[in-house]
């Protein structure tokens, strides 16, 4: 069984490109390990099979720990440059929300299609203040705002969908499904090419993921309200300052003053007292990370956090 190929609207991204007789530009962005390269491989092979010339270039070097990965794919009758200039991408696929926003000005104004996962991967450096409930330096724009700003925007919770299908790693295939609706290739060919690139044993879940993405865009085209249904999925709970409470309980009778907690506290908020016992010198700096509790050989420190703080973890 294959997905329905007769869509309500023709392939919008390629329509404009073929009219102008120029290559189709697709920019895929994300962070390490999400499958950016896999998407570009599928795309490159598929367009090659259709007799197009393909150029693909990528940067993935610093990606191991959540770093930026991007891949430019250009295909058409004749492709000269391997990279896409600002404002010339016909489709921008973002596997991570903030990455999508970072590359947004590469999208062709007016006609560009923006396909993005709404799931946020917050990098550690976005948490400048390590206290519980502290404000994060992460993109504040809501998906609804972005959709209203771009020509065509499809924002879906691809990670959540893949999770429901049984394999979180199929999130990129969900987005491939969404992408496939904007290009001219038939659905069966997409599925056959995806089969070649996914690990053995995951073909079935990837086919399902692909169809999910395709159906999702179809539904969103018919019903704009559905298109925003995932926009606010999986928002991290926001804590008010008063709700966050961390308390350190130090048992002086058990403490032997070994100094481990003082030296290993990442915030340096502990000190040894005159009696050579651990004391909380700077309660305001304590984030409740529990390192002192884990490493106290004498079980003298107990970190108490409120229920709200636990829930935010």
């Amino acid at each position, binding site marked *: 069984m294959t997905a329905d190929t007769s869509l309500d609207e023709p392939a919008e991204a390629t329509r404009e490109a073929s009219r102008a007789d120029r290559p189709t530009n697709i920019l895929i962005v994300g962070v390490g390990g999400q499958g950016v390269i896999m998407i570009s491989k599928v795309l490159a092979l598929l367009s090659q099979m259709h007799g197009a010339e393909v150029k693909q270039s990528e940067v993935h070097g610093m990606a191991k720990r959540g770093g930026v990965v991007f891949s430019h794919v250009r295909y058409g009758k004749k492709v000269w440059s391997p990279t896409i200039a600002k404002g010339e991408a016909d489709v921008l696929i973002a596997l991570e929300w903030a990455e999508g926003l970072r590359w947004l000005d590469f999208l062709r104004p007016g006609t560009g299609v923006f396909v993005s996962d709404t799931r946020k991967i917050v990098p550690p450096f976005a948490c400048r203040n390590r206290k519980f409930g502290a404000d994060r330096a992460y993109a504040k724009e809501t998906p609804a705002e972005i959709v209203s700003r771009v020509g065509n925007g499809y924002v879906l919770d691809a990670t959540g969908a893949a999770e429901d299908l049984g394999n979180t790693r199929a999130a990129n295939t969900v987005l491939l499904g969404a992408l496939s609706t904007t290009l001219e290739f038939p659905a069966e060919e997409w599925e056959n090419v995806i089969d070649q690139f996914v690990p053995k044993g995951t073909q079935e879940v990837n086919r399902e993921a692909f169809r999910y993405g395709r159906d999702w865009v179809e539904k969103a085209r018919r019903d704009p309200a559905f298109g925003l249904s995932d926009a606010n999925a999986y928002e991290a709970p926001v804590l008010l300052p008063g709700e966050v409470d961390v308390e350190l309980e130090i048992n002086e009778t058990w403490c032997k003053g070994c100094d481990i907690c*003082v*030296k290993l506290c990442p915030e340096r908020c502990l000190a040894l007292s005159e009696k050579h016992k651990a004391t909380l010198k700077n309660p305001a700096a304590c984030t409740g990370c529990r390192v002192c509790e884990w490493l106290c*050989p004498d*079980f003298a420190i107990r970190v108490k956090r409120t229920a709200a703080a636990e829930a935010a973890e």
Partner: protein
Amino acid sequence: MNEVATVAGAETGPFEIRDYLRLELMPHFMCPGCGHGIALRALLWAVHELGIEKDKLAVVSGIGCSGRVGAYIDANTFHTTHGRPLAFATGLKLARPDLTVVVISGDGDSLAIGGNHLIHACRRNLDMTLLMLNNEVYGMTGGQVSPTTSEHRLTTTTPTGNVEPVFDACRLAAASGASFVGREVTLQAPALKNLVKKAIAHNGFSFVEVMSDCTEIYGRKNDLGESPEMILSQKADMRPEAFGNVADQPFRPHRLATGVFAELDRPEYGAVYRAQPAFRKG
């Protein structure tokens, strides 16, 4: 890392170490900064997360600083003779297969005096867990050289530095047939807890080497710094990588690897023993 399933139906709330300690014996006797306390917390934490009832937990320990660790646990504890906790635990587990048996032993206890018991316990593959707290020295008796003392280190019996090669306990256990072998440092307490959890959940003999610190005797004699410096040095000395096969490591690696080295599905001795015709008749 795969999460180990808890005992069916067990609801484990936040871990509160006081629930698992004999409070009347606290504070414990160990020296300031001794890594054995961190290892004890990791064990109790793992027991808590696995949802094992205190009445169903039996901790057997030998002699030495590590031998005293078991005494602070509010469960069934058994303080045995030097080097023989595995022998006692084998009898206990065969008689009471319903108990979760954890053996706490030191480097000298299990590699020197109890070396024979260790290799044969590994060979039999009876379902129990051995936590070998390796602090590289006999701390309780004044700091004599042990089979794991690093080369050139000073102890009371090697006043000019140790010249003997070091025993690699994980290789020994894996070669003897232990079906689960792992090593972790006390600095990585949550990782240690996860390793112990896996080891306890494993059906068969599990060998866990815990790299601990003897701060007062070994650290002082060798000028290794105070407790924080010693525990932080674990970061430099260990490689957090699992090797598929411990035999591929050099005999005396400069930096020790941590992680799970062996996880095999071998017949468990207790089940094999009870399946014998003579046992079934009786």
